[in-house]
């Protein structure tokens, strides 16, 4: 066999070697890209979950402030009501000194205490038992507070769930791409017909992986209104 004939006999095999090597590089880069994106989405899951939990804490801190204020108002109103009942009893007496004392309590002390009582004892802030509906007062305050209303932990949790679903598919995809790399590695070290079989399966897995990657990213990013 001449040198020329030998070269021509090995040429298709060498060409396939180059193709497989290029494919290996391309699949490795794709797998690395998918792994990076999976990791980035995983970070988003952690960040949004963390943001949601921080929102829960913030919301509860604000709720405690509102709750303390509302109970302080109810307490002032209750103490004012007690003093008003006392004043009424004294004013009903037939002793001028007690009437004067009751009148002074009623005219001076009760109104000043009532000033600290907020809207209590308004009719819509009473329970069916006639006691103060402090929860209704808290709800009234919170529904009128834009800062409180702006904190929505459920929104962060929903976003985290969305990222989590994206991560789920990207992880499966990353595994598929890693396996494609394995098949192409097999194609690199085998020969003849089996080399082609390994190569075809590897390329098919890679193609499915890339198609799925584009599909998954389009679906989730579009669903979030373009937010990556």
């Amino acid at each position: 066999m001449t040198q020329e004939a030998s070269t021509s006999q090995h040429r298709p095999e060498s060409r396939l070697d180059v193709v497989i090597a290029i494919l290996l590089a391309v699949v490795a880069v794709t797998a690395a890209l998918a792994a990076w994106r999976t990791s980035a989405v995983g970070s988003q899951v952690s960040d949004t979950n963390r943001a949601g939990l921080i929102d829960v804490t913030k919301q509860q801190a604000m709720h405690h402030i509102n709750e303390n204020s509302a109970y302080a108002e109810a307490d002032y109103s209750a103490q004012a009501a007690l003093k008003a009942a006392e004043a009424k009893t004294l004013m009903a007496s037939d002793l001028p000194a007690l009437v004067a004392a009751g009148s002074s309590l009623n005219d001076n002390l009760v109104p000043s205490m009532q000033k600290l009582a907020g809207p209590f004892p308004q009719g819509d802030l009473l329970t069916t038992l006639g006691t103060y509906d402090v929860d209704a007062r808290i709800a009234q305050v919170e529904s009128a507070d834009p800062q409180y209303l702006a904190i929505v932990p459920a929104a962060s949790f929903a976003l985290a769930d969305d990222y989590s679903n994206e991560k789920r598919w990207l992880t499966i995809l990353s595994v598929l791409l890693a396996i494609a790399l394995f098949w192409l590695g097999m194609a690199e070290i085998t020969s003849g017909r089996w080399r082609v079989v390994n190569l075809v399966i590897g390329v098919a897995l890679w193609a499915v992986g890339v198609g799925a990657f584009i599909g998954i990213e389009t679906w989730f990013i579009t669903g979030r209104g373009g937010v990556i």
Partner: protein
Amino acid sequence: MTADEARDRGRRIVVILTLLTTIVAAIVAGLEVEASTQGDRANRESERLVLTVAALQVSDTVVENYQNRLVTDVLTNQQEGLALDYAALQLGGKGDDAGATQVGYLAEAARARAKQAMALSDVYSDPAYAPAKEGDFPDLQGYLVARSNAEAALVAQENAASDSYNLWNSRSDTYVAILSVLAITFFLLGLAQVARRMRPFLASTAAALLLLTVAWSAFTALT
């Protein structure tokens, strides 16, 4: 069967086994990521509930302080009324009728305060805790227990979420172990494709590992 045919058949089996391993690995990866996702969600829910329970405990303290103060107002004023009645009797006994009348009005004023505090107190107004007859003590303990029931229910939910997290986390760990075994299976199958003499041994070991991972995965998913 010629030696070439036998070799070809061996390679075909190895490729089929590798394909099966690919499919199993993809499924196990899916199960692992699902378990991990569910675990993360249960963990988050458990943390959210812990924060909610802590917040509820603080709220309960505020509510209980308010109700306790009203109960204290009732009891203090009732006793003040009794003490003043007693003083009025003593003054009357000493012939100081004007003083007795004045102190009698003060006793009445104290009772009016007690009555108003009762009207504003949930413990005295709610028939579930209110005293059966005048002068009796309300069921303050029952009121506090009822409030702590909501907390207990949340704690139970938190425990359930925590258990769920542990379960999914443990499953996720198991799937990672299975994936590691599958990686070894891939390695053995890769060797089997190129090693001629050891092919039957490597392929059968890989097949055994593949069966093991399938059974292990099924057991993990179903238990």
